[in-house]
């Protein structure tokens, strides 16, 4: 958790609003991944990033390698976006990931 820090640790949003999650890391890495763990516990990959930006629907993520951070933007939040968002960075030969402690998001109607 110390090498990859996520903020905020918890967040509550109204349906239809926008927000940004942040991931700062203190280790050299070439890739960043974002995952969502839904309230039932299933983990799914959202983004696999090299330096740059990717967009998928209402989600957009940026990996800034020079300043060692990544952001995940959620636009027009929906109830099904609720869950815990994890950031993970690759180390070594990219086989291993170092994980943050997650941002717990609740979207309210």
């Amino acid at each position: 958790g110390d090498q990859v820090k996520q903020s905020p640790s918890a967040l509550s949003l109204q349906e239809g609003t926008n927000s940004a999650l942040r991931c700062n890391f203190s280790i050299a890495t070439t890739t960043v991944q974002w995952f969502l763990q839904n309230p039932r516990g299933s983990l799914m990959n959202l983004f696999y990033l090299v330096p740059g930006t990717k967009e998928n629907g209402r989600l957009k993520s940026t990996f800034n390698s020079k300043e060692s951070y990544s952001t995940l933007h959620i636009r027009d939040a929906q109830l099904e976006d609720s869950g815990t968002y994890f950031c993970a960075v690759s180390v070594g030969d990219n086989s291993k990931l170092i994980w943050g402690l997650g941002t717990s998001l609740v979207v309210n109607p």
Partner: protein
Amino acid sequence: GGIITQTPKFLIGQEGQKLTLKCQQNFNHDTMYWYRQDSGKGLRLIYYSITENDLQKGDLSEGYDASREKKSSFSLTVTSAQKNEMAVFLCASSQGDTQYFGPGTRLLVL
């Protein structure tokens, strides 16, 4: 597409017991992983394997054994279950980029 299955879904053990968790993937991925997740926490790597019969220790390997008998399966053994232990064990596979996860095995030790 592919799928990762983990068995059992729930596992209740006794203190000191040896417990084995199994994971199967049909992605034909080379690399497989075992993670432990404690309530409200992130994932910690126990073991991973980059090919059949390969084993690499993660940060949390003490107290665990693992076995990659064939490319599609990776098993994890808790060598001596600790009293009141409660965690979710997640298996994942990868082919060099994103990791795909199974549904998890929930462990409770009485």
